[in-house]
């Protein structure tokens, strides 16, 4: 099955969403998205890290040092209050658009 590409806006939303339940390192974010999407969505490092840098710049997450499951010192990304607010906003926006699209698809 070909890998499904994601629009970058959606990737940001997914990253914020998987970070809601707690801090994760970069690889874990990619893994979590992969697993939760039933292995449909692939997050390449070439899009994950630029997206993370962008989110860092916006101040939606902060990076802090932690120890990985392989006992390495890596950076964990944690949602900030601003990021939480952004997530809520994006979620409701996404829900609204999705609902609209769905209703068109159903009735047209």
């Amino acid at each position, binding site marked *: 099955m070909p890998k499904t590409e994601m629009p970058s806006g959606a990737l940001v939303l997914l990253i914020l969403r998987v970070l809601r339940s707690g801090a994760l390192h*970069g*690889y874990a974010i990619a893994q979590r998205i992969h697993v939760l999407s039933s292995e449909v969505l692939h997050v390449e490092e070439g899009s994950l*890290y630029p997206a*993370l840098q962008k989110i*860092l*710049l916006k101040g939606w997450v902060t990076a802090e040092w932690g120890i990985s499951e392989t006992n390495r010192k890596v950076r964990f990304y944690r949602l900030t209050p601003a990021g939480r607010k952004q997530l809520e906003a994006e979620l409701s926006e996404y829900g609204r658009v999705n609902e609209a699209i769905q209703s068109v698809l159903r009735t047209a």
Partner: protein
Amino acid sequence: MNQLFRRLRYLLHRRRFDRELAGDLDFHREMAQRTGAPLGNALQLREQARDAWGWTWIDRFSQDLRYAARMLRKSPGFTFAAVLMLAIGIGVNVAVFGFFDLLVLRPLHIRDPATLLRFHRRAPDNYAFALPYPEMAFFREHSRTLSAVLAMNTTKLAVEGEAKQIDVDFVTANFFTNLGATPLLGRLLDPVRDGSPGADPVVVLGQGFWQRHFGADPTVVGGPIRLNGKLATVVGVAAAEFSGLSLNATALWVPIAQQPYFAAGSHLLTDYSGTSGVRMWGRLQPGVAPQAAEQELRSLAAELRKQHPDEIWEKEGLPSDPGGFAQSMIAGNRSGTGSEGKSELYPVIGMVAALGLLILAVACGNLGSLLLARGVAREREIAIRVAVGAGKGRLLRQLFTESLLLALLGSIAGVAVGYVVLRALMTATEIPVWLNPTPDWRVVAFALAAGFASALLFGLTPALQAARQRHRATIARQFLVGAQVAASCVLLIVAGLLGRALDHAISSNPGFEYQHVLSIDPGLALHGYSPARAQAYMDTLEGRLRALRGVRSVALTLGPPLGHRSEIAGLDIDGRAVRVQINRVDPQFFQTMQIPLLRGRNLMPGEPRAVIVSASLARGVWPSQDPLGKKFSLGEDYTIVGVAGAARLVKLEDSDSVEVYFPLAQADLPAASVLVRASAAPEDLARAVAATAKSVDPNTFPEVELMKTGFRQKLRGAEYSALTVSVLGSVADLLACLGIVGVVAYAVSQRTREIGIRMALGARPAHILSVVLRQFSRPVAAGLLVGVVAATALSRLLRGQLYGIGNLDPTAYLGAIGIFAVTVAVAALWPARRALRVDPMRALRHE
């Protein structure tokens, strides 16, 4: 806001952030490897991720900059030549801008320059830059928008130990305190002690005068000084850095309340007629706009007019200029009827700026050719860079960075060159010390902007050519040669015109004879003479002068030729507006100045409405009619009774200036001067004339001047400008020639093989030369043509400065083109000779 902050923090800790990112990616790859997923290029990934912070350009730029610096260091000869050319081109413009900055942009070194306004009088039919003292005093008393009013009257006084009379600035006692000046020695004027007419007479010295006259002796403070024979005390010395709101380095300041004490009989403080008057400045109250002050003064003037309907003009207003800039001092004491002429400052500066830009254009053109040639030499390097994956944009950026670096070096050197040039010019022209030519931030910003603009000019085309890997840069090079030729041609022609004008001014007859004339200014108005007393004085003086041996004739005039006093009127003649130089003269004037009466008759006593016009005015206004008997109106109706030869008595340099002579009325006599024509050398007569004038009234201090001296002073400005433009023109010519030497030499070296073949086949030297030079003859010819056309357009601005030669003077044009043609021919032939020395065998074997 926060985002910007984070971005800046990133910039500061770039290395750490980068390391952390690398750590993240490493870990990711380590984990991914376990699952056997494919991996990307780590370095590229990192760069992509870093892009989010928006600072990547800095890395690239600093990389380019380092590379550019290395390239320039590797060819020091090229770098030196390029920076030198730019330094000359930018430096000339920095000097021009620096001068403009000093006059117009840079606030004076006084307290709170923004709230100082300079006022002058204007009504629909009149304007004057000086106010009657009592009018100023009325404004000072009643204005609510102004917190203080400053005034100054400049009068020439005799000072012991000085051969000539000296300009003394009589100022209101608040002058120094309000402007925030501090003394160099002793004290300055003080409103409490020096404000009243009864106060002890005191004098403040200018630093220059103190050094020149007193040898910088500090003990003169507190000592006596005599002005016009009247005793006063020196109370202090003002530092040379203080402008004194005057472009002439002021020698002496005296409280204006004491002016009548020094100038016996003066009515300055009570006289509404405005024959002398004061320059007026006002300080705005905090928060008040200049318009509000103007409005208030306009209504105050209307109120004052009720009491003085003859002296205060109808609808008189007092427009203001910002007083905190040197520019506001240029207006001086002009006055006249009709609307005032436009400022002469901007056209002159514009003209000089245009010439300066031409120099820069030549320098850029030159450098452009050099870079093109260098671009060809660097083909190999560029080809390699393309081969290893450099994109066109990246290559262009890198080449242009080199140009930017050159431009920056050129700007820095240009600021230094500009400072030196400006300083030298200012020392030569005796501009006061307080105009300090040290570059300020505006000058530096200008130099950087000029450098950037030149980098675009000289750097972009060669960079484009090289980045596209185009090998044929011939067209661009030809264009650059043409542009240089055009620009330097303009400069040479303008230099030629100015030189010719100067030569013409010295050698030709200006329409009157000045070599044997002396002028005497008895300064009667200053001493409070009434017209009737002045009449008696003049009658006596004229009688005694005529009795002197060696005096051929004596005349009276209000405005001595070549003097500083000029009256300009806007006349309405048959519905046409004509600006004329007005003089008021007695009937002996024309004989004394040897101005021929071409038609009609002389003025006669008892004819106050008869006038004589110059032939130039008659020709201009009534080209095909008889001007005699024509009338025009200037308050009253005047009838033309005679036509005199054109004689530009005041504006020697302006061939368009025309004159009208009105009869001198008795009311004019207190301000009139006496002209004396000597039959032999006037120098021998000067002493006797001065003694005679003094003998009529010992209380006066008549000033005797040789008209020759005035003429020489008038020409000094023309000498400076001719010299300056000649230097500029030579520099441009030299630059253009250097450029041509460069491109021709390059062309020869490129075509060695072809020349060898032609020689082997029996081509003659002349033929070889024509082959080499043909590609340059067309751009040179085109540049010459464009240059001549541009010069004709530009020189129209100069019309008023050419002392009577036309702005299309053929001698100047042909001379300039001749000089240019010869230098260019030498510049082209000298390197082309090498083509003739090509050895065919060696040239062919070379390949």
